[in-house]
């Protein structure tokens, strides 16, 4: 220790480094964003934390400090928060587990098909992308009608082709997810597809040529060239799609309104209900923080595991 420290001490003694002058220029460049960041991110987070720790109601004169009461409610069995927060969080997780693989796989599949110079390629690209420009209410009403228990197109088709009795999609637990998942895929597929199309265009054709000279089958080219080359985009698509899926709100709100018996209610819809229907702002804020933390951890895990893959495959 002394040995290693000695030269630097000597060096300092010999030639004292000039005191670094505070250069404010870079901070000025950062200032505009920093201001917005503090006003719209840091301050609301701080204020939200304050709300979640107090019995907060602007109309009452006092906002008494209650400590972790609203956080404890979430973890105390028997409270409405413990019942519904975890139920709706599971609903949201279930939706994510089901829809993310479908959204990624289907988007990749479509991109592979539409990357080839087939007839009407631009037309099909537009067709698959187009639903994404609809608002969630339009998309939701559309799929609610398609899967209506009595008069939906799906039930009508079942009766026409299979003479099968109508299925009450919207009011059967489990089945109620079908219109939500199908509708979401139809609605958001095009965005991921476009990302994959752009990435496919960047894969050097020489790699495929080399592979075919070596006698690689199409599957091998796909497995050992396309998939690794697309890994960075896949990471991006996976993370953004998973985050978007966890923010499920509009689709289930419009299609099933969270029913039957809250079986398709998303956690954000429940938090909104707690805040604005029950006027329990502090409780809603507390649940918002727990959910936010959950998302943060999840994204961190996803990034770590995926980033390692990306690095290992050398892309």
């Amino acid at each position, binding site marked *: 220790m002394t040995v290693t420290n000695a030269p630097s001490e000597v060096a300092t003694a010999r030639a004292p480094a000039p005191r670094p002058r505070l250069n404010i220029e870079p901070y000025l460049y950062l200032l505009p964003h920093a201001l917005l960041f503090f006003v719209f991110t840091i301050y609301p987070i701080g204020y939200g934390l304050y709300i979640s720790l107090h019995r907060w109601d*602007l109309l009452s004169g006092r906002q008494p400090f209650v400590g972790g009461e609203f956080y404890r409610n979430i973890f105390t069995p028997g409270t409405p928060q413990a019942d519904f927060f975890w139920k709706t969080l599971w609903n949201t997780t279930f939706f994510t587990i089901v829809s993310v693989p479908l959204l990624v796989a289907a988007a990749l599949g479509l991109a592979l098909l539409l990357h080839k110079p087939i007839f009407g390629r631009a037309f099909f690209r537009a067709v698959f992308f187009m639903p994404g420009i609809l608002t969630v209410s339009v998309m939701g009403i559309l799929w609610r009608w398609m899967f209506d228990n009595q008069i939906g197109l799906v039930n009508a088709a079942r009766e026409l082709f299979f003479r099968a009795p109508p299925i009450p999609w919207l009011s059967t637990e489990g089945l109620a997810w079908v219109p939500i998942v199908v509708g979401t895929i139809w609605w958001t597929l095009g965005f991921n597809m476009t990302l994959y199309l752009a990435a496919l265009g960047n894969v050097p054709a020489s790699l495929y040529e080399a592979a075919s000279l070596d006698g690689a089958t199409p599957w091998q080219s796909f497995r050992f060239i396309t998939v690794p080359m697309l890994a960075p985009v896949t990471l991006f698509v996976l993370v953004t799609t998973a985050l978007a899926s966890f923010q499920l709100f509009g689709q289930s709100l419009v299609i099933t309104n969270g029913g039957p018996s809250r079986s398709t209610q998303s956690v954000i819809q429940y938090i909104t209900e707690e805040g604005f229907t029950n006027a329990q702002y502090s409780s809603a804020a507390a649940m918002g923080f727990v959910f936010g933390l959950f998302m943060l951890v999840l994204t961190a895990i996803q990034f770590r595991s995926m980033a390692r893959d990306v690095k290992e495959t050398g892309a």
Partner: protein
Amino acid sequence: MNRTLRRTALLTLLALGTAGAQNYTGPKVQLSFLHGFTGPDRPVMESLVKRFNDTHPNIQVRAQAQPWATTWQQLPSLVASGRAPDVAVINEDQITGFVARGAVSPLTAAELRTAGIDKARFFGPLFATADYQGQSYGVPISSVAYVMFYNKDLMRKVGLDPNKPPRTRAEFLQIAQRCTVDKSGKNSTQAGFDPRNLDTWGVSLYNNWVGARAAYAAILQNGGSLIDAKQNAAFNSPQAVSAVQFLVDLVQKQRVARPNSTEEAELAAFSQGKVCMFPSGQWYLDRFETQKMNFGVTFMPRVGGTVRDAAWGGSSHLTLPRQRPGYDANKRAAALAFMSWLAQPAQNLTWTATGSLPTQGAVARNAKFETAAISGVFDRLNSVYATSGFPWVGQVMVPFDQAWEAAYLGKKPVAQALNDGVREANKQIEQARKNFQQ
């Protein structure tokens, strides 16, 4: 449109006169007026405000329309910071919550008298919607109700008198049974009737919150209530269970209503002449009229019991939000004059063009309604009850609507569905109470 509107307005003014005191004589004041009529009703409200400003030179009302939900979120902070609008419109499901939290100031008997607002003029339960603990907090200007549409052609087809809508449970059940006919032409009372192959059916029941208002009406008709004297949820009383059981039996035993149905499906079925009776919000009136259907509108028959007539209603009330100390007394007097004017029969008649029901008997008796289908419910507008009077409407209505859904869909027996709902509601209420114990 605008011209016709103005002409109608003028005519109604002449017809009804401008009775009542509008006696603000103080210095010129400006009032802010916040309301949520942002749809096709917006121009009607704006023309009314303009007319008020034109005829009241010393009061200038500046109206602002913004979506209801935004107002519910903003009003607390506006009141807390002393920047509340002088007059705000609050709806039936929010009013008691705001009153109990002190966001709205009471309208004293003296103030109402001075402003010429006579509560006896209005439909009783409608005016009482904005009452809390014996005090009045608002004046109704808009009203909707859960009514029952019936298809006259279909009733005639099955041999019923289309001009005799049901009033009692027995009459209702008889019509429902006669209207329920399977594809081979047998009705639900005949042997060999096949409920799985219906051609037409008796009544529309469905699973969303509007559908749940059928249960609400039935419970009140049977002498039940959503809450008890202590404002805890009580929609599992014996009266409530028996009333809701009757509705669920319409699906499961009588087979005169379709199981697993949705509002859209029943609405489409009614429009296509597949179902005789369609209980729903009166807001569908316009749609059936545009469609030139041969239909009638009647008050919800007493399906739940014989204690009283009852149906659900929604309403909008003019209120005076709490202001900072030292608020200009002239502004309050002017605001009361504005409220009084807007709630006058002449203005209310103009307002009914938006699809609102009359708020008072004098308007309901207007000649304009003599041939209107909607007048079929006017004989019982005094029996429309809003979900108000307790500060935790959300805590009660969400579990109530879910209890109806579970019972109607047959996922739980009626008593269990209602018990579960009450248990959940009371847990939520227990938490909500803490907000009021400071």
